[in-house]
Every structure is written in C-alpha cells, then in structure tokens.
C-alpha cells in the first residue's frame, strides 16, 4: 500500500516558462517529484536552475505553465489556485526552503532556539517548555551544542548557520524541501559534514528534495535522479549515476569532463 502512495507524484510541473525581459529564465520545463525522492537540478550559473526552483516553490510566478502539489488529503491542487493563507500554511507546514545564504533563510537577530521554535509556533505550538525541548532536540540532531541555544546566528560560523537553517526547516516535518546550493561557499571539510547530515536526515525522514547545485559531486552523493539545465531548458534527465557516468548531451559531457578529480 505504501508503494502505491509512493507511486503518486507529490509535485507535478508542466510547461513552466519564465523570462526576464529579453533574457530567458526558464523555458518549457516539465517534471515530477515523488515522495522520498531527491532530485538534483544541475547546470552552470545562468542555466535557469534557480529560476526553476523559484517557480516550483511559487516564489516566482510563471509566464506559462503550472505547478500542482498533492495536499495531505490526496488532492492534486494547482498552486496558482490556492489562496494566500492556504499557500502560507503549506509553506510553513509541508515545505522547507534551505537557501545558499543562511541570512536569507534565518532570522539573524533571533536566537538559535527562537529560529527553530518560530516554525513550531507557526504551526500552532504554544507550550514554551515543549517548544524549547523540541528546539534543543533539533539543535542536537544538527550537531549544535545545547548551550548555544540562546546565541543568535550572527555568532555562528557558516557551517553552523547552514545546520541551523536545516533544523529550522525540518522541525515541522515537511514532505518537500527545496535546497539552493546548500553547501555553496563553505570549506570542503564543513561541506562534507553538512552533506552527510543532509543525507542521513533525508533518508531518515523520507523527505522529497529538489536540490539545485552546480557541484556534480554533491548531486552524486545526495540525489536519485538528475536534470541538467542549459539556457533555461532541461537538456538531459535520468538516474544520477547514468547521467554522470554515461552523459549523452554535448553540454553534459563537457560538465562531467570538466570536474577535477581529487
């Protein structure tokens, strides 16, 4: 029975297009995301991958196309047709968004515990002691010491900020998480720790994830499927290991062959 639920897509995007004046953002992109599946969107800067993430998460409005999402009651709803309140509730409860720049995804002047607790309060938690206990538990899961709970993230390193952002996003047990270059700009050793953390939490919670990255090693480590974008279009898709080990399109072959082996 659970296999049947997993066979129904969680999110369905059809014919998504978005231009910025004369510049192409995203052109005629269709894709599906299934429960528990990690989809990597790869491509170079300007390929349209962040625009696609913005369209999928409804932060941007498409010029054409639509995004449908399976609500908890099983209904596949057109996101453009949801009211503002409904959409806000969805983003607080069912979705998470981990941004490259932690300052865009955290409240920098609120304590670490407050950053996590705020999401719980948004879904109706009211008991302070329980909120604090849950926040402490989540800080532990992302390897932030409990005695940092009252510090605000301005005092945190880049890696810690990202881990706090992950705790803030996952505390409400979302079903779908968008990640935009979550390891970008971090030291390699910090990256490895963060990747391992994301990998184990995603598997443990059965999350569906759309992760945008230009780092093919990150895509290989985290994702099941991959889409390669260029000039706003999806040019190749497949299992992650297929696309990376047997790339077909000239551009994908160029991307894969340009990676420096350590």
């Amino acid at each position, binding site marked *: 029975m659970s296999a049947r639920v997993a066979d129904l897509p969680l999110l369905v995007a059809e014919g998504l297009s978005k231009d910025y004046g004369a510049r192409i953002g995203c052109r005629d992109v269709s894709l599906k995301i299934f429960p528990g*599946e990690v989809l990597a969107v790869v491509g170079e800067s300007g390929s349209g991958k962040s625009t696609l993430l913005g369209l999928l998460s409804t932060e941007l409005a498409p010029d054409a196309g639509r995004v449908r999402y399976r609500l908890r009651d099983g209904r596949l709803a057109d996101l453009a047709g949801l009211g503002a309140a409904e959409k806000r509730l969805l983003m607080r409860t069912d979705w998470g968004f981990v941004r490259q720049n932690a300052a865009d995804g955290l409240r920098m002047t609120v304590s670490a515990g407050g950053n996590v607790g705020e999401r719980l309060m948004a879904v109706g938690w009211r008991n302070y002691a329980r909120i604090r206990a849950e926040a402490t538990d989540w800080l532990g899961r992302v390897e932030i010491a409990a005695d940092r709970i009252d510090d605000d993230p301005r005092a945190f390193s880049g890696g810690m900020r990202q881990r706090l952002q992950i705790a803030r996003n996952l505390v409400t047990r979302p079903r779908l998480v968008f990640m935009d270059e979550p390891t970008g700009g971090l030291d390699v050793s910090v990256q490895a720790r963060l990747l391992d953390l994301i990998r184990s939490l995603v598997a443990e919670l059965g999350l569906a994830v759309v992760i945008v990255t230009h780092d093919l090693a990150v895509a290989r480590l985290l994702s*099941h499927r991959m889409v390669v974008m260029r000039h706003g279009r999806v040019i190749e898709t*497949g*299992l992650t290991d297929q696309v990376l080990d*047997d790339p077909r399109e000239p551009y994908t*072959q160029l991307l894969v062959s340009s990676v420096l082996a350590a």
Partner: protein
Amino acid sequence: MTSEPILSVDGVAKTFLLHLRGGARLPVVSGAAFELRPGECVALGGPSGAGKSSLLKMVYGNYRIDSGTIRVRGDGDFVDVASADPRRLLRLRASTMGYVSQFLRVIPRVSTLEVVAEPLVGDGVAREQALERAGALLAWLNLPERLWPLPPATFSGGEQQRVNIARGLIAHRPLLLMDEPTASLDAANSRVVVELIGEKKRAGVAILGIFHDAQVRETVCDRVIDVTEFAKAA
C-alpha cells in the same frame, strides 16, 4: 531449482558518442545476447578493452544502451532495464540486483561498519542486527576490527575492496554483478571471496562477473561468455 532465466540480454548494442572529441564514435558491443539462470556463475571473458565492464554496467542500468533489451526477473515479473523508468530501475536494484564495483565510492564521515550494513538497513533489517552481520562479514574477510569504526577513505586498495565486497554481498540479491572482486586481494582473501561466491550460488543467486584471476575463475565459474564475439559485430 527453476530453469527460467533471471537475466536475459538480447540484441544489445552500445556506441559511445564523444562530442568533445569531434563526435568520435567508440563502438562497445553489438548484438550482445546471453542468459543467466539462478545458481550459476558466468564470467565475461576477453581482453582488456573488449567491453566487459561496460556490459556489466549496462546490465545494472548505469550505462544506457542504443538498442536491444536487458530483461531482469524481479518482484515476480520481467523488467527491461533499458526502457524502465528511473524509479522502477531503482526499485529493481534495491530488490534484485547487487553490484560489486572495483572501486569503493566513499561517503565522508560514514564508518566502515555502517557502509557495509547500509544495504541491509535499506531492506528493513534492524540497525543493531545489520551492524552485527556487517561485523561478522568483515571478520570473515579478515578486515581488522580496529578499522571498522573508521570511514574507509584512507584504507589500502585491498582493504577498500574487501569493504566493497562485504557491502555488495551482505544483503540477498538474486542477481549479482561483480567487476574483478579479487583484483587487489592476496591469496588468502581471494579464497574467502571464492567461499562467499560459492555460498551465494548455493543460495540460488545468479552471478555475472569479470574474474581476471584464472584460478578464481575456474573455481567459481560454470561458463565463460566471450565478449569479443559481441565486439566483432560492433
């Protein structure tokens, strides 16, 4: 024991098209056709560069093919690896196909014991039990216990290969694909791998592999498929 094949390869052709080399075409195989039945171990034979590893990767669905079918019996019916959608292929790998590659792809910070236990945990076995079985298998493969808590990134070639073999063999998969499982092993450890393969065969597992060591090949394999036959046509 059933005589119905678990793997049926028919008319498989593959040419690499190298866009960065001016569109050069690198033919790998053409007209590849063979079958594998439960409990048999079959070697892919032929000189280096004949396409043995590539063929193994096509069966696993890691390399895509230009034509033909690769049918694997999994979860009751046949699935064509070549045309299955990605999610179906992932399910087929999880339930039916194991792959022991030559090189270990390490995951930062994950211990050897956990790397080995992971396929069992994926099958739903309790973590403690999975770790225990992983330990038993690593002990059989003579990997020193002091290495178990460490990530295998810094291990020697032979140690990494044994981790890889343990990870590839720990869970039951009716079809095993093995790419030179004894390449960096000494004689004693090669013998352990031969014993492990023998056990899998007795459990009805079908094995398709590349075995360069003639002695290992003669001990475990029931027959050899000459891959140069498929290269000729290509």
